[in-house]
Structures are given as C-alpha cells and as structure tokens.
C-alpha cells in the first residue's frame, strides 16, 4: 500500500465503488420487485450481475490481483448463457400464454 499512500489525493475511495455497485445491485433488485414484465426483470437481473462485476473489478484493482477480472469473464459468459436459456423459456411461455407477465404464471400454488 505504500505507493497508494503518496497517491492518495488522486485515488477514489474504495467505499465509493462499493456504494456504487451496491446501488446498482439494489436498483436491480428493485427492478425485479417493481416490474411484472419478465423481460425487464431479466434485464434487472443483468443489472445486478453488472454491479457484481464492477465490484469485482474494483477489488481486483484494489488488490492489484487479476483473478477478479478473470472471474468477471466467467460471470459474463454465465450471464450470456442464462439470458439465452431464459429468453428461450420465455418464448415458449409466450407461445403458450400469449403474455410475458409473471403474474400470469401462478397456476402452481398451495
């Protein structure tokens, strides 16, 4: 950390990044709660993942360790895969129910 000390002035506090990514994460959660359209909900989940990515990168920068950034690769790949699968499922459902409203899907209960 020595060199970080003399460059203190121009650095960004790590907490800022934590707060930022928390904010994005929470906004994603908020979106999941707020919307009923399945697609938008997917988007909000992507938002959450991005928040995590950002946090990872921030930490990797902080620790000066590349593993975090590598991990972000994996997260991206997984995100892509999930989206593909998710949208495929969604389309099936749309064809069966003619809707992307999550509230339509409440046949299974109790």
């Amino acid at each position, binding site marked *: 950390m020595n060199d*970080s000390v003399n*460059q*203190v002035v*121009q*650095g*960004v506090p790590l*907490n*800022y990044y934590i707060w*930022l990514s*928390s*904010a*994005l*994460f*929470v*906004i994603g*959660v908020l*979106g999941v*709660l*707020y*919307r*009923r*359209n399945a*697609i*938008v909900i*997917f*988007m*909000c989940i*992507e*938002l959450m993942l*991005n928040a995590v990515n*950002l946090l990872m*990168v*921030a930490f*990797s*920068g*902080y620790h*000066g360790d*590349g593993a975090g*950034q*590598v991990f972000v*690769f*994996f997260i*991206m*790949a*997984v*995100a892509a*895969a999930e*989206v*593909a*699968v998710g*949208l*495929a499922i*969604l*389309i*099936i459902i*749309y*064809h069966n129910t003619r*809707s*992307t409203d999550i*509230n339509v899907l409440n046949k299974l209960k109790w």
Partner: protein
Amino acid sequence: MTLYVFYFLSFLAVLSALMVVFSRNPIYSVLYLVITFFCVGGHYLILSAEFLFAVHVIVYAGAIMVLFLYVIMLLNLNKETEPQKKSAYKFAAIISGGLLMLVMVAALKGAETARLNFGAHEEIGLVKNLGKMLFNEFLLPFEIVSLLLLAAMVGAVMLGKTPLKETQDATRTNSKSAEQNALNIKNVKQFTNE
C-alpha cells in the same frame, strides 16, 4: 480529475439504471440499460481494465442487448401491452429497495482509508496478463465455461426447435435464429479470447 470522471459516470449509471426500472416501455428500458452498461464500461476503463472493457461492451451491449431487443420486438411488447403492478406493490417495492440500500451501505462500512490508486497496477488489466492467468490458473473453469455454454446452447436449441402450437412459423424461425446468432457470437468471443 479522475474523481470527477468517477462522479459523472456513477451518476449517469445510477440514473439510467433507475430509468431502466421506471420507464414504462420495455424498449426504453433496454436502451437505458445499454447506457448503464457503457457507464460501467467507463468505470472499467478508469480502473485500468481495458480488455475487460472491450469484452464487456461487445458481450453486453453487442450480444445480450441485441438479444433482448430481438425478443422484445418479436413479441412486440410496448407501453400498451406492458403490465403494471398495483401502486401499493410499487410503493412496497421502493420502500424495501430503499431499506436494502440503507442496510447494505450501513453494513459495508469500514476500510475508509482504502483507496484505489489508479496506475498502480495498469499491467494486470492487459490481455497478456489476463491471458496468462486464464490459461494457467483458471484453465479448468475456462473449459467448464465452454461446457456451460454448450449446455445452454443445447438447451436453447432444444427449446427453440420444439414444434409449437398455433404460432406462425416466421416468428419461430426468427426467434430460433436469434438465439443461434447470440450463441454463435458468444462462441466467437470465447475463441477470439484464446
């Protein structure tokens, strides 16, 4: 100076993220999401993760968002068809979201002195280093990702090519091809990484 950049990007990211949530029309949501992604990418840049920035932009903005747009247009969703929750739900959602924010910020206190000193570790963000790390330390996960993508592809294809009831063929083929494209793109990405 970077601090101001940080503020700007963060502000924009949060704002557009909120717009993703609150804009009624799915199309707008997508577009705002793209903006958010770019802001995040900007952060990658100032965190000197240049290569990650590139991948990020290509995969997210390029592939995933396109995929979303495809689907939205395919199902031609818009403001009118957009289902809205009861305002009570919305209110509750906002409240709980705010609570979550508060709690997380409160819980993640500590390490005030910790600062990101840009330029300290520029080199780790470079393709060279990341590639080394990826193919030495993280070789197995990397291969597993391919397995994952394979599984996803198989699954998506399986779902896609199922004979559906009364839908018009055009949409089906389109949707299918859309997924195909998406998958191809990602595969390409991954191979370019190698």
